[in-house]
């Protein structure tokens, strides 16, 4: 049981980084698969709502492995939360805590703020923005960019692909603008 106790401790960023990086050769060695999770969203569209759109007419079943992979992510996160203390309170930088307090967010008991991520917010402006609009931007943006953090920032950069560097810089630019301009504005409006 020593090993479980060892894993249950909070992980240093370098440990997390190495293990995420090792997923790249792991998938290549398992079956010449390239890490890229946003593709599963396209597969689900192709399977469920193809609607005669040419973008969804492709052999999505050939990529079935990726659906198994994301199902595994869901199970793995559940296991981590249940057995590996994965949902424990985290340290949050004092400067960020200060800003979040101004947003009226003070609950650090889990990895996501309960004040936002709960079903009771679903039919509110907060829910519309953080779940529906946020999710739409992820799905639309990643497909338009031809990949997400895993496909471009981890896999693409690892393989020295310059288009992935352009994509990663744009992910970061969008994120900086969002976190420092849009999100403060959203909370100012929500808490008004």
């Amino acid at each position, binding site marked *: 049981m020593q090993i479980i106790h060892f894993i249950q401790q909070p992980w240093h960023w370098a440990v997390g980084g190495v293990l995420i990086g090792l997923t790249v050769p792991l998938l290549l060695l398992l079956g010449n698969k390239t890490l890229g999770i946003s593709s599963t969203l396209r597969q689900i569209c192709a399977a469920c709502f193809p609607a005669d759109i040419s973008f969804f007419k492709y052999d999505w079943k050939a990529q079935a492995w990726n659906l198994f992979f994301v199902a595994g992510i869901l199970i*793995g996160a559940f296991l981590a939360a249940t057995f590996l203390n994965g949902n424990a309170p985290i340290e949050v930088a004092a400067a*960020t805590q200060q800003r979040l307090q101004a947003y009226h967010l003070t609950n650090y008991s889990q*990895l*996501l703020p309960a004040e936002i991520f709960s079903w009771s917010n679903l039919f509110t402006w907060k829910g519309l923005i953080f779940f529906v609009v946020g*999710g739409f931007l992820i*799905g639309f943006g990643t497909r338009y960019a031809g990949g997400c953090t895993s496909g471009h920032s981890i896999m693409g950069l690892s393989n020295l692909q310059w288009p992935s560097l352009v994509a990663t810089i744009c992910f970061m630019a969008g994120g900086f603008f969002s976190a420092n301009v849009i999100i403060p504005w959203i909370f100012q409006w929500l808490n008004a």
Partner: protein
Amino acid sequence: MAQCLRVIQPINTNFMKNIKYLIAGIFFGIVLVKAQVISWFRIQEMFQLTSFHMYGVIGVGVITGMISIQVIKRFGIKTFDGQPITIPPKKFDKGQIFGGLIFGIGWAITGACPGPLFAQIGLGFTVVLITLLSAIGGTWVYGLWEKKLPH
């Protein structure tokens, strides 16, 4: 909607062939949680430049991946069942700029990219299922407009 059951078809027919990817996914899911990269707070810190954590994780991840791919290429390493390893190159188009900016905005709002969406649901934040459905909707709308968007 009944068509959605089609998603299950390859799961039925190729279960044994694909089970290894399920296990790889479980490993990746545990790592995403324990490295806290699925934390909404960590994403805010990254974009507010108040902590090094996310930069450390992604930076070390890229370096590890880079070394691994170099080793695989240099020594011509094959897959476990002896197939050659080939990695398709990424082609540049303007989508990486426009789409990248759009996704970045969503990343900071939700605190998640596509992988972490699945992990956040597994973590117990079942309401993220709505975010995932909306992301599928966003991908669908991209497919609908694909030809009209600048690339």
